[in-house]
């Protein structure tokens, strides 16, 4: 089968998943439970995606743990996203150079 057909199916399915709720859900949600639920969803999604996957993100649990620790400390003090993200990578790199 042509690779172009595979790519079209991939792209089509992925687009529809994003587009349908975003475009056709117009009502404001009134239910207190649902509003609370949607308020917590971003934090839950990010936490589930980060832990434990972050420890496998650099090819070494030790360098990943160092990067995670640095990210947690800097985020705790409210540093900007880019600073936290790059400092985590720098910490992993520096730790890796000692291994």
């Amino acid at each position, binding site marked *: 089968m042509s690779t172009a057909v595979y790519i079209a199916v991939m792209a089509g399915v992925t687009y529809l998943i994003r587009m349908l709720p975003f475009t056709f859900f117009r009502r404001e949600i009134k239910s207190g439970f649902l509003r609370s639920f949607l308020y917590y969803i971003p934090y839950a999604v990010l936490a589930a995606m980060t832990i434990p996957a972050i420890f496998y993100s*650099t090819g070494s649990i030790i360098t990943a743990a160092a990067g995670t620790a640095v990210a947690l400390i800097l985020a705790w003090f409210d540093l900007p996203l880019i600073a936290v993200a790059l400092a985590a990578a720098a910490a992993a790199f520096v730790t890796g150079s000692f291994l």
Partner: protein
Amino acid sequence: MKKDLLKGAEHGIPIALGYLSVSFGFGIMAVRAGITPAQATAISLTNLTSAGQAAGIDVIASAGTLIEMALVQLTINLRYALMSLSLSQKLDKSKFTLLKRLIASYGITDEIFAVCSAQTQPLTPSYMYGMIAIAVLGWVGGTVLGAVAGTVLPESVTNAMGIVLYGMFIAIFIPPVRKHKSVLFTVAAAAGLSILFRYVFTGVSFGFAIIICAVIASAAAALLFPVDEAAEKEAAE
């Protein structure tokens, strides 16, 4: 409007930098699986998602069926439906026409969703376009570089770059964890469940595991710590 576009673009820079490193890896992987650099670029431009694209490459490389391809994408990417629904509640309705919704929904990724949902103002199309444009540039640019010249950077650098996106996630959820017990509960519950799926219920695919963790943790938090509108505003600040 121009101001929103620039603000969105500025907020998109850390996303683009993170994407650059991840899609670089995707480019290398795609070429190894026998896909041309042009096809890898087309996949990144039309899909704009990491896990879904990686799985898609596997399906293509193993000559899977189109049904399999559709089901794999549906499972891994279904979390975007939840994010789209959540963002639909934050839109500036007077500015978001049907056409603009059709365009902006193309760019709803984990990271763009995260940054958009952290905004206190209603979301405008210009703001989202600015962010999406920069993020796509990083994602597609990284894919091209990885596919064409994957062996240029030393492994020590590409390995360290693997943590960039996770570092950004931490920077998003830790400050509210510090301020609100309810968010601390949500994050701890979701992380705990995610660990269970990783090491115990290993038969569940990545995409489904994320959905199950997020739904259970958020539903429990919503029952234990209902949010009223005043608190919602305060928490967002």
